[in-house]
């Protein structure tokens, strides 16, 4: 598939210094917002985003315009929360957008706020993006000083205030209801759904939560139109996607490509191929929560539907590529250690399940595995699957399940080498 001719999201690669407000303005910056508040209705904005088929980039791929339409009529105030809690292992495209193209994100937040008739929007940014938060605050202050934000946007009656809210280190706060709890000043525990945030979200009011990359697409869609946007991508996954490639590739980084390029193209044409020309062993295609692929899947098309058909998901677009030096057992251990560390502790299957997975996997990586431990791993994740309160616990099932499915021989081999293998297995409850 040919590369894109201009970037939609990573416009910092086409326009040097686009983070500077004047440069952004010289390149059509804030024109979409100006046109919208002066000449278009909120419904017009919802319609164009819906027709463009913009899908949420945070992981679920739900159409953004459709989500905006879920708000109950005549209930105000309404809130918009931009989810900038980017913490999924292997994912770093929001980071680049915030650092290098902040005004396009801010304009996207403002357009979405206008579309849903919200006057106070929050950007919930992970605490580690301390510099990013300062950068966004400065960019918002610069835009407000020009009359693009704040009261009377572009001299109209529309008011849009954007507040940067820094988290403080918790992956779970990327889950939209945990994000709202955190914004309300509480620990980041997810809420029971329904009610969904669109009905009862921040402070109990109708709330839309959208991802950074999703909102950064919006100014270009509104300005250039549906046909322009749909030039790239597939019918069901239109537009471009910023994939983050990391691990054992020669040129790790963010690459914006049309939906539908193949994994092989991403790795070999964009990311410079494999380090030391080694073979691809494991591909984690959409963040730590996505089922692994192998070299056999290199020709999968990178769109929501094709990855689902391959038994995995596009997820966050964070692709981790690992070569044959990596042990599948070690990878499963590290990934479930992540989920154990980030489990919020609210529900038992996740809190205890991740604990037992890591404890048992540690025995495989450190020579303490006993005969029954492979069965124990199956047993633990089966008890977690479908029983966790939110997707974090469900995601913790994925690495160990795929590792055991794709590389059972590595677990057998670790067991065969384990000095403790003949010990009498203890029960799970020790």
């Amino acid at each position, binding site marked *: 598939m040919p590369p894109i001719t201009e970037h939609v999201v990573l416009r910092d690669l086409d326009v040097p210094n686009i983070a500077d407000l004047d440069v952004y303005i010289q390149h059509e910056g804030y024109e979409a917002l100006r046109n919208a508040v002066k000449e278009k209705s909120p419904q017009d904005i919802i319609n164009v985003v819906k027709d463009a088929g913009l899908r949420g980039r945070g992981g679920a791929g739900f159409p953004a315009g459709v989500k905006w339409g879920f708000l109950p009529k005549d209930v105000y105030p309404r809130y918009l929360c931009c989810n900038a809690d980017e913490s999924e292992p292997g994912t770093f495209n929001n980071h680049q957008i915030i650092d290098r193209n902040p005004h396009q994100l801010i304009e996207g937040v403002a357009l979405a706020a206008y579309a849903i008739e919200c006057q106070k929007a929050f950007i919930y940014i992970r605490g580690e993006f301390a510099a990013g938060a300062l950068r966004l605050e400065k960019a918002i202050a610069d835009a407000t000083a020009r009359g693009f934000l704040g009261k009377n946007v572009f001299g109209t009656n529309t008011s849009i205030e954007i507040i940067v*809210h820094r988290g403080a280190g918790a992956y779970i706060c990327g889950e939209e209801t945990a994000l709202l709890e955190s914004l309300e000043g509480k620990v980041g525990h997810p809420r029971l759904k329904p009610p969904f945030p669109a009905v009862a979200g921040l402070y109990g009011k109708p709330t839309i939560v959208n991802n950074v990359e999703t909102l950064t697409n919006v100014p270009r869609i509104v300005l250039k139109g549906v046909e322009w946007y749909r030039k790239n991508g597939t019918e069901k996954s239109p537009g471009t996607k910023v994939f983050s490639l990391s691990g054992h590739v020669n040129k790790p980084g963010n690459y914006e490509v049309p939906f539908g390029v193949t994994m092989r193209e991403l790795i070999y044409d964009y990311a410079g191929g494999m380090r030391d020309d080694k073979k691809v062993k494991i591909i984690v295609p959409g963040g730590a929560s996505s089922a692994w692929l192998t070299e056999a899947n290199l020709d999968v098309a990178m769109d929501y539907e094709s990855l689902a058909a391959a038994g995995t998901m596009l997820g966050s677009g964070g692709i981790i590529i690992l070569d044959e030096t990596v042990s599948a057992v070690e990878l499963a251990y590290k990934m479930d250690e992540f989920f154990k560390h980030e489990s919020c502790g609210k529900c038992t299957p996740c809190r205890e399940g991740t604990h037992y997975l890591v404890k048992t996997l540690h025995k495989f990586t450190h020579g303490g595995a006993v005969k029954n431990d492979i069965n124990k791993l199956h047993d633990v994740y089966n008890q977690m699957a479908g029983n966790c309160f939110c997707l974090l616990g469900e995601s913790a099932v994925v690495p160990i399940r795929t590792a055991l499915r794709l590389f059972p021989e590595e677990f057998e081999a670790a067991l065969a080498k384990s000095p403790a293998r003949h010990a009498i297995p203890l029960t799970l409850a020790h």
Partner: protein
Amino acid sequence: MSLRQTHGAEIDAILALYPHKRSAILAVLYIAQDAYGQLSDAAIREVAEILDATVTDVFEVVGFYTLLYDDKVGKVVLQVCDDVPCAFCGAEELVGTLESKLGIKSEETTADGLFTLQRVKCLAACNRAPVLQANLDYHGELSTPEKVDELLSQLRTRIANNDNISISGRKATL
């Protein structure tokens, strides 16, 4: 001096952003943490009073979030990502280098009180593996002991000059 006396205007500006005071909890805790070097019981009580929150609620929040430190930390907190993919791109070697150069283990603070070393999860900078944050400033591609030496010496100079030191990241480098 209380936080109200030293940071009153900043705290009021933050409180004004939200319909409910409690939403300001993380921002006010960050201020307290920088002012006192850690979130001691007294600091937590003071923040609770500022927010009209119960002391228990504030303790709970401090216990939940990893960037809020109730134990004393160094002037600079070094947080090395040991997650996937960094774990397979030199993170363990980086932790080892830092431990030997600083003479401490992970989760410890140097005797001179300058550095705390921690292992953390994904920092969303995987393209720069192995990567760490020093008071939440990113430093990537730390693949050799020489690069680590250079970083530590830069940080020692900054500490000596008291140049924008904030464990809460409130003075992060743009």
